[in-house]
């Protein structure tokens, strides 16, 4: 276990140390889309903002959140929903593309330039299915957590602000654990000659073999974004009602950027770890 942790730590440090925008570019597209929605959402008083971010909000929750300052209470939900959809749809193409770009300098023979398109097409289906299952599990977990019996039990041990913080933290920690199981699916899916079934199966197997070190890296790299999300979940009403609603927009912006970089580094570290383990096995 100690060796696995050391290997994963090395992979994470290498991912952080050898950042190249070219590799991050596919994630940057998703980030740009999220920031565009956020920008429009921050300008809901304009026709453009209302016709886009307002329209999306209305599709998700009806007319009720489309009022000032209530909209800012809903903004984190809107952005996390948009983030989930973008990762699900655009991510099925862009995440494999980023992973191919990360792995090419490490193993040029397995990831030749000319195969990029075919390899991305090969990965789309397993990545999409994996993301769908992952999303369903996280949504299911959040549903269970917010059942009156479960949340009530937690709040009997921790009341008020502490109770809200515990519920939010528990929601995130378990959510990250679920995601950890699916981190290797895109990494395996871009490997040469992988069918969708084997990509998902091998991805899950690789994750369960390396679960603890990968989970530590996932949590460690996600800490800034998680802290921001915690503040938004626990103090959102306070910030909107007592300080200034627009602060929520700024915090969501910071969350989005932190979350995107964390996701990129996690995939980069997982890809490096997987590739190293494959090389070692060979």
């Amino acid at each position, binding site marked *: 276990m100690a060796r696995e942790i050391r290997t994963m730590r090395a992979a994470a440090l290498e991912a952080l140390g050898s950042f190249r925008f070219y590799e991050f570019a596919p994630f940057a597209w998703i980030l740009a889309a999220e920031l565009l929605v956020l920008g429009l959402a921050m300008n809901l*008083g304009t026709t453009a903002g209302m016709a886009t971010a*307002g329209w999306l909000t209305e599709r998700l929750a009806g007319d009720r959140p489309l009022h000032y300052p209530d909209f800012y209470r809903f903004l984190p939900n809107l952005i996390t929903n948009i983030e989930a959809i973008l990762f699900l749809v655009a991510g099925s193409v862009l995440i494999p593309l980023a992973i191919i770009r990360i792995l090419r300098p490490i193993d040029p023979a397995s990831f030749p330039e000319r195969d990029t398109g075919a390899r991305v097409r090969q990965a789309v289906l397993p990545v999409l299915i994996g993301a769908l299952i992952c999303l369903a599990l996280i949504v299911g977990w959040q549903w269970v957590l917010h059942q009156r019996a479960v949340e009530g039990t937690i709040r009997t041990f921790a009341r008020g602000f502490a109770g809200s913080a515990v519920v939010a933290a528990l929601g995130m920690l378990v959510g990250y654990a679920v995601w950890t199981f699916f981190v290797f699916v895109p990494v395996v899916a871009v490997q040469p000659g992988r069918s969708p079934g084997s990509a998902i199966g091998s991805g899950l197997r690789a994750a369960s073999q390396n679960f603890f070190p990968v989970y530590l890296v996932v949590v460690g790299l996600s800490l800034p974004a998680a802290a921001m999300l915690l503040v938004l979940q626990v103090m959102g009403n306070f910030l909107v009602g007592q300080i200034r609603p627009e602060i929520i927009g700024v915090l969501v912006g910071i969350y989005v950027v932190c979350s995107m970089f964390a996701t990129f580094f996690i995939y980069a570290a997982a890809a490096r770890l997987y590739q190293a383990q494959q090389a070692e096995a060979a």
Partner: protein
Amino acid sequence: MSAGPGRWLLLAAACLAAGCGLAERKAERYRVEQTAYAAHKAEREVRLMRTRPDSTALLKLRAEYARVRAVSTPPYIRGASVRDRSVGRDVLRLVAGAELQSARLAIEAGRPDIALESSRWLADHAEGDTLVARQSDFLAVGALRMMGRQNEAIERMRGMLTRYPPNPPPAGSSEEDAILTVPEMMAGVRRDQGDEAGAKRELDNGAAYLRGLLSEPRDPMLEAQIRSRLVRILLEQNQAAAAIEQVSALDRLVAANPPLRELQPELEYSRAKIRAMTDHDPGEGTAMLEQFAARYPKHPLASRALLDAAVFLEDAKRLPDALARYREVVARYPGDEELAPIALFREAMLEERTGDWDRAKSTLESLPVKYPRSQAAVEAPFTIAMRYYARGDKDAAKVALGRAVAIYTDMIAKDSTSAYAPVCRYNILRAHLSLGEWDKALAAVDELALRNPRHPFTAQALLEGAKVANANHQRDRAAGYLQQYLEFFPDSPLAAQVRQQKNALLQ
């Protein structure tokens, strides 16, 4: 015929344009909300400061709310689709809400004229929305009252009764339509003017109005609310038989409609009061009123039940019991700004009657401190002086009058636009007249004429002022007061006589 790509593009553009129209309206609503919120926040920040905002600060805050008007342009309810018009109605109501807030601050800053302008603006932009039209009228009534234009306020209220039929409460609520409170408000305005006969007349009119409403079939909750208001008016008018009739009808209504069961306590109170009014010995009725207050201590009528019990006991010459009840009202309901000062005043009167003048005096002295915005607080300082006169202690009476002037001046300085400010000014005049301080008395007349030109007390003050000025060889000044009287009260029955006196003074 097949649709070419051009037609599809045209269709898509039309859909987009239709959607954008709604988005534009919603964006407009959002901007209005943003501006209103900014104004609300600015006010909250000012209110959180240690010092109370002065009129300049209040008018600055008012300007923040007034900005909301500029965010959206009328007509607000526009567009072809139902959704467009629905969002437009939201915008109208938001703008109206902000305008009401701005008017509230104008009134607080002592500028009811601005509030009246707001009310006119609201009336002009109501776009057929009854809620906004009603708000405009209620605002106008408040502003007119503050400006001392009580008769106009009453006329406006009378118009409201014909314009706005009462609405039943929304499903699941028992909230009463404010229009049903208007008849009692009209009586209250007359009472504030010191016009008891006028108040009685307004109550008569109010009872007739409510009876008129009952001549048509109504929603059961609304009918119950109308009957309940009618019972209150009838009880105030001491019309026990008519009140019993309404209580019985209300009883039947409650029995037939289980959701109205929440009116049961009010019925109990009415029965107890009728019993106390009609029985030769009010013992049983007062006991029922006391039981009501004990059983429903948090009911809005609980303090009134105790006060009623005290008044019936006082009428029955059971003074110690009555005194105990008055004290109970003050002790248990100190926050009841309407009834607690009355109870405290009557407590003082009973203390004096039972021989405890020192305690009565200190009770009266506490009134302007505890309830400065009450009729009792205005009466108390003058009453102390009058009681000294009645006891034959003229020196103490003069000292008390001097103190009363100081208290009234302080009360006016604290709230120069309250409904009681003209009464305070008039009492200052009375005090100076009693003390023989003629110059100060004439200054008080000038102040009343300047601040409350159309108030009934001003009419009295101008006539007194003319007498005093004439007696002090200031014939021009006396004639000036009479001229002001004629300008302010041209329809007064005394107008001809006053004109004659004025002409005589000028010859």
